[in-house]
């Protein structure tokens, strides 16, 4: 293994890791937003909203994320959507992971004991009041870990945007392989950086989960 090469190029990989982190953060924010809207739609009383929610989830979970990215980035200009690679990456991945997060959130909300809703409603609370004050506070706690799994998948999923030439960790590895012919070292280096990011995020999720545990 060429350690000298690794020491020479790693600062560029650190810069790329920053891009991966930015992508991950923005994608998480967009994903949580789409997830919350998707979950709300899927549990709505209006069948139109329920149908929209179900369609959203089945389209984005039912096709490869890479195809979704390609349609947005390469196909977008044909229908008047001009995005740079980074923007397309965030939107493509965020809307995609949002479909998974919608199901995670819906699952957590539905797994709150139905006696909780009944108790709240029998006292005269409206559906919305019961949701806000009784169901959601409990569901939020239940969804931290499974959303952590979604976020873990999303961080690794950011590697896909290398295919639309966003200069993040995977793309950077490929670029340096082109000039050094050392794929083992280059992929190992980017892999290690992914692992560090995921490890730190994992600690954060575990901390949140512990803190939110019902006393």
């Amino acid at each position, binding site marked *: 293994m060429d350690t000298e090469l690794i020491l020479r190029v790693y600062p560029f990989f650190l810069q790329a890791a920053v891009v991966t982190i930015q992508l991950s953060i923005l994608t998480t924010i967009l994903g949580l937003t789409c997830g919350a809207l998707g979950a709300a739609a899927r549990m709505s009383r209006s069948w139109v909203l329920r149908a929209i929610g179900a369609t959203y989830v089945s389209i984005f979970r039912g096709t490869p994320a890479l195809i979704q990215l390609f349609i947005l980035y390469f196909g977008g200009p044909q229908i008047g959507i001009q995005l740079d690679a980074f923007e397309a990456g965030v939107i493509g991945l965020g809307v995609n992971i949002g479909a998974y997060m919608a199901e995670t959130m819906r699952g957590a909300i539905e797994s709150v004991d139905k006696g*909780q809703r009944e*108790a709240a409603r*029998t*006292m005269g609370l409206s559906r919305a*009041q019961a949701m806000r004050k*009784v169901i959601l*506070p*409990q569901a939020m706690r239940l969804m931290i870990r499974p959303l952590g799994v979604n976020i873990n998948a999303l961080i690794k999923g950011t590697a896909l945007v290398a295919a639309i030439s966003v200069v993040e960790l995977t793309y950077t590895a490929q670029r340096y392989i082109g000039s050094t012919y050392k794929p083992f070292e280059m992929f190992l280096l980017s892999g290690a950086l992914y692992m560090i990011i995921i490890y730190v995020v994992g600690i954060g999720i575990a901390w949140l989960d512990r803190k939110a545990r*019902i*006393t």
Partner: protein
Amino acid sequence: MTTSFVKIKNAAKSFGNLQVLKDINLTVDRGQIVAIIGPSGSGKSTLLRAINELDPLTSGEVWLEGVQINRHLPPRQYEAHVNQVRQDIGMVFQHFNLFPHLTVRGNITLAPRMLKGLTEAQANALVEEQLTKVGLLEKIDEYPSRLSGGQKQRVAIARALAMKPKVMLFDEATSALDPELVEEVNMVMKQLADEHMTMIIVTHEMDFAASVCDRVLFMDQGVVVEEGPPSVIFQNPVEERTRNFLRKHLARNGG
């Protein structure tokens, strides 16, 4: 003077092809305490849950103090109407259904604060009053997970009472409790009876029903088989089905 306070007229309910309530009529006067007994699957919980629209009837009427609870209204108005009438109907569940993320205080003040706009001082006074009544003032800032089953149910009763309901519904309130914890909940219910709270109690506790209730309904297969004062139902039931049920029940519970 008695006034019919809770009135159920020609109540029927089906789940698909299964008819769980068949033409049930019941009136409860103000301050009366009515027990509903019967085998599981007889429809007694369904009837109770129809009173506050948790399980709406398929047909028939439910009235509380001259107001029809199960009015047929457009969805929005129906919601508002139901949310309003439910404030007058307290309900206690078999599994307590306390809110685990809120303290005892939070559990009790949630609905009064949201629905009646109490100030913090008013809410605190209310909690203290209700908790004193059920003898749990010292648990005011505990979370439900720190309470025994009996204590949880007493808090649940205090929570229902905090809305100052006109009638209280008990759905097998002591069925999930260890035997040694049943008495403390029964004591609280007896105390409510002494205060002339109108109560409808679905129960398996025949001794309790006999000692507290003014009237007992025996239900089986979705109909009221027999009703009358506890002395008649428990000592001299007329119907064969009632006798059978009580005999089996006594055999199982050793008197």
